[in-house]
């Protein structure tokens, strides 16, 4: 089994996630894209763990999930707070700060 394929898959998912952040205006979807990127990283970690024959990658992936969970909570809390104020989840409307 060629680990390279997994990593390439990870790279593709990562890139899709990266582009998702750029083209979606809904903050929640944007955030999902970021989660996708984290998942891609996890996939790469796990794949490399397989290639390297060590478990460090798997441990990292586990921790990433934990961190991601925490991040999601905070992120969604922030998005909620903003939604309650502005009644919109579009990130483009948060552009008072500029120049």
């Amino acid at each position: 089994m060629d680990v390279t394929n997994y990593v390439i898959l990870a790279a593709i998912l990562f890139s899709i996630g990266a582009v998702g952040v750029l083209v979606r205006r809904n903050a929640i979807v944007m955030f999902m894209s970021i989660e996708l990127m984290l998942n891609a990283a996890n996939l790469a970690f796990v794949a490399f763990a397989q290639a390297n024959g060590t478990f460090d990658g798997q441990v990292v992936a586990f921790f990433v999930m934990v961190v991601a969970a925490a991040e999601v909570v905070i992120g969604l809390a922030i998005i909620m707070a903003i939604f309650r104020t502005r009644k919109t989840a579009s990130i483009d409307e948060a552009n008072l700060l500029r120049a």
Partner: protein
Amino acid sequence: MGYTLAFEAISPIANTQVATGSFAYLWLLIALPLIGALVLLLGGSRTNSFGPLLAVLMPATSFGFAVYLWLQMLGLPKELRSQNLVLFEWINIGSFQVPFGFQLDPLSMSFVLLITGVGSLIHIYSLGYMDHDPGKRRFFGYLNLFVAAMLLLVLADNYLLLYVGWEGVGLASYLLIGYYQHKPSAAAAAKKAFVVNRVGDVGLSLAIMLMFVAFHTVTFAGISEKAEQGSATVLFLIGIFLLIGAAGKSAQVPLQSWLLDAMEGPTPVSALIHAATMVTAGVYLIVRSNSIYDLSVAAQNAVILVGAVTLLAGAAIGMAKDDIKKALAASTMSQIGYMVLAAGLGPIGYVYAIMHLLTHGFFKAGMFLGAGSVMHAMNDEVDMRKYGALRGIMMITFGTFFVGYLAILGVPPFAGFYSKDLIIEAAFDRSIIAGVATLLGAGITAFYMSRLILMTFFSNKRWEDDAHPHESGLTMTIPMVVLAIGSVSSGFLLTYNDALKSWLAPVTGYQTPEPPIAIPVLIAITLATVLLGVLVAVKLYLKEAARVAPTDVSIFTKAARKDLYGDAINEAVFMRGGQQVVNATTAVDNSVVEGSVNFIGRITLGLSSLVRATQTGYTRNYALAMLIGVALLLLLAAIVRL
């Protein structure tokens, strides 16, 4: 005085004696008028009462002391007459060593006597002339300052100190020409005099620098000692630079233009500075630098050329001027041309140059004072066409003036006869052309001086209605009389027993001229020429002169009236050209220098706007920028690894 004021003497320079005895106090010559100037100028209005008198006293005392020293000097053997007094070390930087020292030798002694003597007379004259002027304290202060500076000029033992005096008299001249500060023309004339003189000063500066570079000394003694070793080029260049300096101060072509304008100053100033003393400084400089000129025929020729051109140009201008002072000024220019020409002849001419300088000092000063007296009488009118028939009213003025007139014409036995005739002889010795120029000059001089005296004292009355001419007071007439006596006698005295020749010879050397034409014949020719000039003038102006200057005149007259277009050329080349340079530079400063600074500023601000434009406030834009950054970094990393 309980203690000695004589400064410690520093080692003697070759051919000179360390000043001892009364000569150790020769600095007093300068100090006295300087003190006068300081007291008057710094003392303020509290010196108003006694100031003018003090101012007269100071140069007079100097004159007395000068006479005393002269007598002392006469008592010394010829080779010991050059007295050197070094007060202190002035500048000492490496090989550039200049003493603050004075040299009193027969040449400078002659000048000291002239300056203090004529100077004192003119001070006395001024007491009367300036009597009603509210600012006369200042005037006398300036006059004293001038005398001090002029004495410094002739007493310095090196070129640099001479330069100090040189510019000092320039300053005094500036102050005095511009004395009537409220008159814009006076202020402009003063500035012009200073600036044109500065051009000459450039020459003098360069001469001094070149002397230092060539000889590592700038003292007269040092130069005369080393000059023989100098290369022809160096000597020629020094000669030329000195000539430029001399031309500036002595109003020689092409730096003559200031002198006529300088007549804006009070008349005593014209007499003292612009006739008798300061303008002859150029002649002094050339004679003083005899060790240079004697070794460079080319430089001498340049001097002769300048002298010849000026004497003719001055004479030509003199023919056309209706302003009595300007006519006299043109005459001065012309007469100094004689002196310069003579000085350019080398040892043959030095003595005659100085002789003419001294006699000219008497008769021209006298005539200026006479002119001042006339003006005084005519409500400060200077236009000769508004004079006429004054001889009966102003007897003394006319008398003294007429003596001066005869002197300048070179009518024997008046002073001018001796000095001018000798110059003509010497000029013929050198070259026919120079000789003819001097001869021609004599003729023209006779014409315009006759014209002047005829229009002023003879001819018909052309006064303005409110003119009430009267003879001037004693303070004015006495100096005129004294100068007239000098005008009569000085020529004879100076030549009697070759007095001046033997007096100056230790300094300047002497050669007897041997003109190609026999001297008596030459004298006859000269007198004939002069007579011709007089006759023409008599024909034209004895009976009657036009009240207004005719306009349908020849092109030569027009040119002469315009000072031979000297000012026009200055105007076109220097004034307007200079203005254009100023404008162009200002434009460059605005556009290029400021512009490039502003350009950099604008570029920076433009970039700033550009950068700020990327800060759109849209998070997605920011993320895009990050992603672009990531991609570029990855690309760059790949390139780096290649």
